[in-house]
């Protein structure tokens, strides 16, 4: 595996992705729109909820608007990340396969795409946290940022899995939007979670650990080490699955090798 080729693939995949108008629109508009709607539709009344990942599940009392703002940031990051992951795995597979045929290793392509996803999600995490801060300053902004980046990482990997498995763009979009809506847009809201049944189901969903990291950091002094670590592990497993699917998709039986030819 050549680092130089990974970096070339990273750089050109990035240009290819970010030159799409819909991608830029999503990155800039979705968080702004989500935050705007939340500010318009919520009040500053006090709500109670449990911090599920903290020892003893302590109850916190916070403003409804602040809770909703932190939560909607997660939903925005998850939506953008899953769409970008889907795009990275699903678009231009034939051209990517031709690259592999001409000498790229599928591992180099996968590594470049994974690296790109992490870079883009870090930038989106910073953007979403930056939009949140004028409305509400969390107890630990860096922790909230970590929660948003982690959501992006996990949902980006999920998008890549969906993009690898599904051939058509519409099916892929439906698949990612459905889960993001149910998970990051509804079930992980701590106000819902507090009263929910079968919480083990909610804890198994992709946005659980990132939402706990963000909520603990925004409203408490509790450590986020455990949910952060588990979230990274969750995302890494999904990313490995995505790489395996991508490898299978790009698989060839011989290169048009520059040195030896096909035999």
């Amino acid at each position, binding site marked *: 595996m050549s680092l130089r080729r990974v970096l070339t693939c990273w750089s050109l995949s990035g240009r*290819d992705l970010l030159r799409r108008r819909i991608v830029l629109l999503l990155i800039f508009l979705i968080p702004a729109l989500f935050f705007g709607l939340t500010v318009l539709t919520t009040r500053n009344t006090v709500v109670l909820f449990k911090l599920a990942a903290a020892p003893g599940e302590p109850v916190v009392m916070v403003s409804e608007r602040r809770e909703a703002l932190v939560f909607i940031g997660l939903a925005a990051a998850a939506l953008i990340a899953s769409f970008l992951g889907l795009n990275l795995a699903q678009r231009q597979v034939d051209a990517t396969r*031709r690259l592999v045929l001409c000498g790229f290793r599928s591992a180099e392509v996968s590594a470049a795409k994974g690296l790109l996803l992490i870079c883009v999600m870090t930038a989106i995490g910073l953007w979403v946290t930056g939009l949140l801060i004028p409305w509400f300053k969390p107890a630990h902004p860096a922790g909230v940022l970590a929660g948003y980046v982690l959501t992006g990482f996990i949902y980006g990997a999920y998008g890549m899995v969906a993009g690898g498995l599904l051939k058509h763009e519409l099916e892929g979009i439906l698949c990612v939007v459905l889960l993001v809506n149910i998970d990051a847009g509804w079930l992980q809201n701590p106000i819902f979670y507090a009263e929910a049944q079968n919480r083990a189901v909610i804890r198994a969903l992709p946005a659980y650990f990132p939402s706990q990291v963000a909520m603990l950091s925004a409203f408490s002094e509790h450590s986020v080490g455990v949910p952060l670590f588990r979230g990274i592990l969750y995302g890494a497993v999904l990313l490995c699955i995505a790489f395996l699917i991508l490898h299978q998709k790009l698989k060839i039986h011989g290169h*048009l090798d*520059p040195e030896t030819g*096909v*035999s």
Partner: protein
Amino acid sequence: MIANAVSAEHLKKSYGRKRVLDDVTFGIRRGEIAAIVGENGSGKSTVLKILTGLLRPDSGILRVRGRAGYCPQECQLFESLTVHENLLYFAAAYRLEDWRKSERNLLARLRFESFRDEQVSKLSGGTRQKLNLAIALLHDPDVLILDEPYSAFDWETYLRFWDLAADLKRSGKTVLLVSHFVYDRSQMDSVYELKGGTLQ
């Protein structure tokens, strides 16, 4: 005796119970322009996929001696990248260090230098096909494998393509076309016709 640049011995391939290639043997010498022609379903695409490494034969041996370049029928390009960036991408795949001269020559030869910094999504079908071909030629291959190469070419580009093929032949390169039919058999050194999975 001139060694074969491309040789296939007793190639067999089936999809399930359907045998697509049945004991296909052929040899194309270095410096030849050859064509494999056949109707839809004749096994042409299967031969092509085996030639390029996309598919493994059930049995038989295939040898391509030297560097091979492949130009697919459908343009397989990165739409949001420019012509130059596409060439840069494939130069990295071919592990080319000094490819700028080759880029300049190909753009000039195929007459699309003015599109170097245009995004592929904004190019006409003919110009895309030129880029598709340029990618196959970028690393100066010894064997050029072309799948229906001139389907999107205008007349001038078509003639230019044959000039290029003649130049490649003169410099000892091998050109193999896989097509439904060939317009001009006089340009070919040999034509193989696939029918029902066997060569005629």
